[in-house]
């Protein structure tokens, strides 16, 4: 999904930068707010950033005989909502553009728009939809992570098609060509990323339950007043606990 340095005409480079900038600024404020209002989230915020950092560094082989890398932006979008990922994703892209010659400064806007804006939002939408349809947390995580990955690459393909429409078949032809490069290769990676997301959230639901409840990812365990808790039958208290564990 990294459009190489200099590979977008100046007008497109500027246009995508203008399009992505408000999201990134809003994202920076969202991160600041999160850290100020919920300092206990900082650890998980770090985990979300680290997850994207790892996954976007690993190039994996795919069925098409090409290799590509996952995005890992879905996890943070699910935990902290998409704006936070607009900042974290852009930081990752900046690191890669400056140190790895992967992506670039002129294409940072376009790449940020696909990787840090469209991916997280599409993934978050898929997550919410799956949960609303009764898919459960892990089902939602799988859908959210996979869709964030795919949506990022589809956006890149469309950005390239817009910049380089085919001389004969025009925009549609170019879109088909670039989607051919990215989309099929990305399907197994998206599935793999969904499974990795499930693994991550399985660990988090056990070890970071209070944070997930505060973030609204898990339904909080009914908080009982100490007096009420004592009045409750032990069996009943244990019963609700078990139910929570099942979710």
């Amino acid at each position: 999904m990294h459009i190489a340095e200099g590979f977008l005409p100046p007008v497109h480079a500027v246009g995508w930068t203008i399009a992505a900038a408000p999201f990134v600024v809003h994202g920076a404020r969202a991160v600041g707010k999160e850290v100020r209002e919920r300092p206990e989230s900082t650890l998980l915020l770090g985990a979300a950033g680290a997850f994207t950092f790892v996954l976007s560094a690993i190039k994996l082989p795919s069925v098409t005989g090409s290799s590509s890398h996952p995005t890992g932006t879905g996890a943070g979008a699910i935990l902290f909502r998409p704006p936070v990922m607009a900042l974290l994703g852009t930081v990752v892209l900046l690191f890669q553009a400056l140190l790895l010659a992967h992506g670039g400064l002129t294409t940072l806007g376009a790449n940020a728009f696909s990787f840090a804006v469209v991916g997280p939002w599409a993934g978050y939408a898929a997550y919410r939809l799956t949960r609303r349809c009764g898919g459960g947390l892990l089902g939602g995580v799988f859908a959210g992570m996979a869709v964030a990955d795919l949506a990022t690459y589809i956006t890149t393909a469309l950005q390239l098609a817009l910049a380089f429409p085919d001389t004969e078949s025009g925009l549609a032809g170019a879109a088909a060509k670039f989607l051919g490069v990215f989309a099929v290769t990305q399907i197994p990676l998206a599935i793999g990323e969904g499974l990795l997301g499930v693994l991550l959230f399985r660990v988090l639901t056990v070890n970071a339950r209070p944070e997930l409840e505060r973030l609204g990812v898990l339904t909080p365990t009914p908080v009982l007043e100490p007096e009420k808790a004592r009045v409750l039958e032990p069996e009943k208290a244990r019963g609700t606990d078990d139910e929570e564990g099942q979710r």
Partner: protein
Amino acid sequence: MRRRHLTTALLVLAVVALFAVPLLLDGGSSEYAGTDSRATEVVQESAPDYEPWFESVFSPGSTEIESGLFALQAALGGVALGYVLGRLRGRRTAEQTTGRTTGQPEPDRA
């Protein structure tokens, strides 16, 4: 608890298989070029006159250095992720231990 571990093992196995099986079936006939560089080639094919108008500010001297830097990126992320998950797990273990010694609300006192 055992079933939980089995599920974890199966998930990890599925991820590995997802990337190992295509490699095995392929038998070394593909180059596994990155899609990003493939896209650049497609641009050059469909718009041969296009000149990239900006160069990377810094390019790793060789593919070895480049993959080293990618490994560094993954390592940094892995360390951070491991640190957070380790701390969270340690916190939970500590809570369980203190809960056991101080005695959580005992049911028979109700």
